[in-house]
């Protein structure tokens, strides 16, 4: 087993375990931390596929910003194991079963595909590098790029408006 394979299996295991812990840990703060580890392992996968830009952006955007927001909100709401709402046992079992069967169906459908011929790791292929991505982004995809920035702006304004509270109602 080459070092790359070891890394692949390690990252895969970490991602799956982390994802399971996100779902099953009782304390929301722990969930957030596990989710961060999931993102890290996915970033690792990106690096293995030589998509360095996406790896770092994934880290900055997800781990550095989005998860901080999650943590922020959870901390301010002071959620912990005790305050965590629980669904009834049967509902949870049913949900797990349905999720599992979805996975089963998908795996069954995909298991016979002839994927083994195509390897993903090769030295060649520098599309993941920032230069190539930028080239394409600012030529072919410049319109979606601009639209997404508008989306960002509106999301920002929306979040601020939602988060703003009528101060006088509280002080009085």
């Amino acid at each position, binding site marked *: 087993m080459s070092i790359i394979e070891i890394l692949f299996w390690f990252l895969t295991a970490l991602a799956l375990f982390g994802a399971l812990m996100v779902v099953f840990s009782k304390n929301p703060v722990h969930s957030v931390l596990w989710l961060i580890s999931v993102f890290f392992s996915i970033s690792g996968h990106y690096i293995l596929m030589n998509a360095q830009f996406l790896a770092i*952006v994934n880290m900055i955007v997800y781990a550095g910003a*989005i998860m901080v927001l999650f943590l922020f909100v959870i901390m301010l709401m002071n959620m912990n194991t005790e305050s965590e709402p629980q669904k009834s046992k049967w509902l949870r079992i049913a*949900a*797990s079963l*349905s999720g599992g069967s979805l996975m089963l169906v998908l795996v069954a459908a995909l298991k016979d595909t002839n994927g083994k011929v*195509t390897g993903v790791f090769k030295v060649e292929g520098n599309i993941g590098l920032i230069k*190539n*991505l930028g080239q394409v982004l600012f030529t072919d995809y410049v319109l979606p790029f601009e639209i997404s920035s508008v989306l960002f702006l509106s*999301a920002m304004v*929306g979040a601020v408006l939602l988060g703003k509270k009528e101060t006088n109602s509280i002080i009085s």
Partner: protein
Amino acid sequence: MPINYYILLSVALFSIGIVGVLTRRNAIIIFMCIEIMLNAVNLLLVAFSKMHHLRALVADRATTVGTDAQLFVFFIMVVAAAEVTVGLAIIVMLYRNIHSVDINFLNRLKH
């Protein structure tokens, strides 16, 4: 590394996300499970982009096939970030009004 492994990994992550959405009542955790699902898709997109790129490389050394998939990932991240800000703002608003993030409370919206 065969593409199959990546497909299976993504499927597994996606399913875990779905299980999370179905089993939990905490709106924030549900939100996080949706993020897992998005990431599963991202991973798959990158893997496919890489696969197609390698295929095309055989024919043309200077090809940029597959770049768009990675750009899709980029855009998904952008949308996810926007979605999280608005979503969390809504959850905070919700929490402020009913002091809970239990989605079952959202039934109150019906009345």
